[in-house]
């Protein structure tokens, strides 16, 4: 895991260090810049050191929390601590949404294969894979925010308040959760359908039916339990996509999360913030994968990692 983090940080740093343009000129007002302030800035930023030295220095300041934003001069870790709750809330809600509704749809499809309902589910998941996040978000805003006034079109809490009040915030999170969770929903529905179909053809299902168990019990307790396990791994591999989706969703719905921070930083060329957000989200992906591997091993006694 540690080598992975080093690799990720080196790669992200390489992308930024070869950027054309001089960070020193980004920071000082062009009119006020003199040769002295320019040299002072270069020394302050350590721009004259060789690349590996700069990398090590940057990483040290990143993980000790001393790295500061070019733009706001705030410590990047503080900014991220401020923005992370919104993204984490959104991410967790989207994962729950995707898992619950994806499973429901998949099970419904598998119990009546090749029916109208099954076709509808297939079309739904195909659309879920294919729909562009930003467009889906705008269409929902147009329908439920602008036309029907059922839900607030953007933001995360009522204007004027600043606390984390789940009840006041809930309406603001409905559309973002749906948009972000739909991709996962589609994967899960498709996966649950096919693994349920496979499970329902197994001998132990015939045994369960033969001994007279009710269909509901057969489907839910015998088939679903066995086909649900691998779903855990889907969440693991879909995490990078989810983070990419959060970047778009947070921007469309004006949520104060890390995705929006990332985009603002990209447009302002705020390299320390870009670097930190990229590395932190990569660490989140790595940890997420680790957790999904562990959960899988815990849930399935047949799997043992040497």
């Amino acid at each position, binding site marked *: 895991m540690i080598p992975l983090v080093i690799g*990720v940080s080196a*790669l992200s740093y390489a992308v930024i260090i070869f950027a054309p343009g001089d960070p020193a000129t980004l920071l000082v007002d062009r009119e006020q810049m003199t040769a002295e302030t320019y040299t002072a800035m270069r020394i302050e930023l350590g721009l004259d050191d060789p690349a590996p030295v700069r990398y090590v220095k940057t990483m040290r300041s990143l993980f000790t929390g001393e790295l500061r934003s070019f733009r706001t001069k705030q410590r990047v870790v503080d900014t991220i601590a401020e923005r992370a709750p919104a993204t984490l809330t959104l991410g967790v809600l989207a994962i729950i949404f995707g898992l619950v509704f994806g499973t429901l749809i998949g099970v419904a499809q598998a119990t009546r294969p090749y029916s109208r309902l099954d076709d509808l589910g297939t079309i739904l998941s195909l659309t879920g894979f*294919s729909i*562009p996040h930003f467009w889906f978000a705008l269409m929902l805003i*147009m329908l439920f925010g602008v036309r029907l006034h059922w839900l607030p079109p953007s933001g995360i809490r009522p204007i004027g308040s600043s606390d984390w009040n789940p009840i006041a915030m809930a309406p603001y999170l409905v559309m973002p959760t749906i948009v972000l969770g739909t991709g996962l929903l589609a994967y899960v529905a*498709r996966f649950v359908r096919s693994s349920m179909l496979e499970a329902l053809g197994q001998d132990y299902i015939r045994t369960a039916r033969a001994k007279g168990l009710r269909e509901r019990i057969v489907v839910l307790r015998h088939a679903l339990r066995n086909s649900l396990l691998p779903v855990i791994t889907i969440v693991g591999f879909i995490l990078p996509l989810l983070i990419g989706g959060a970047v*778009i969703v947070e921007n469309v719905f004006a949520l104060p999360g890390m995705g929006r921070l990332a985009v603002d930083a*990209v447009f302002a060329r705020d390299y320390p913030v870009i670097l930190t957000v*990229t590395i932190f989200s990569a660490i989140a992906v790595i940890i997420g994968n680790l957790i999904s591997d562990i959960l899988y091993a815990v849930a399935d006694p047949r799997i043992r990692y040497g």
Partner: protein
Amino acid sequence: MAEVARRLPRAAASPVAQRRRSLVVRLLSNQRVVVGSVVLLVTFAVALLADVLAPYEPNAQILAERLAGPSLAHPFGQDHLGRDVLSRAIYGARVSLGVGFSSVAITIVIGTIIGVAAGYFGRWTDSVLMRFVDVFISIPVFMLLLTVVAIYGSNVGLLIAFIGISAFPGAARIVRAEVLSLMPRDFILAARVVGASPLRIMARHLVPNLMPVIIVSATLRVGAAILTEAGLSYFGLGVPPPAPTWGGMVADGRTFLDVAWWVSTFPGLALLVVVIATNLVGDGLRDVFDPRRAHLT
């Protein structure tokens, strides 16, 4: 010895031809492949014939008709600069399809080279290449792409290269797994025994057998690449304006959702339809190439 090696693959020529014919039959009898391909072919035709089909210049502004709704003269309405949304959507197909398909070509070439090398040579080559892939796969690609495109600019060529490179780890993993399953097979052993060089085994024996996996994964990647390009364009980081792109058009309309729904809706629908079509073809191809699992999808 060398002569035997040269003759070996050719001995199988006629059954291959037969297999190809039945493959065409199976492709044409797969509903998903047919429906998806027809939609894609129509979109390609529209993109190629944009000059003939588009009723207006895509960038011609009629400011007096800003945000005019759909009408007979402008079936998809007009945007905030009075440009015809239909004509822009027609030209937008060029960018989406062009960037989508070309970037996947790059993904597949890089992915195949790395996957075959890792799977064939094994040992440290495999370890090094796959650790590299692991690193790449942990970085949320869209975030990295935003950064890279914002820093290094976005002409069409660069955009294709960036999107293409960003997706290679998935392709490399799939190819490697398939190579590992082919390596113990007798025909690879036979090729080794007759003294075929590694390069020859990879090019003549491995890659042809990888084709089904590569084609399916390539098709399924086109949709994702199109969505990535559209996402970048939505942020104004795609093909630079005023060139019409579907993602950029959706972004143009986002501030007028309350008064002009058509500006964002139609280009987004075009995106949805094209991406669904590529995914349909991909799913159908997988069923055709892997009939054992077809009943499950």
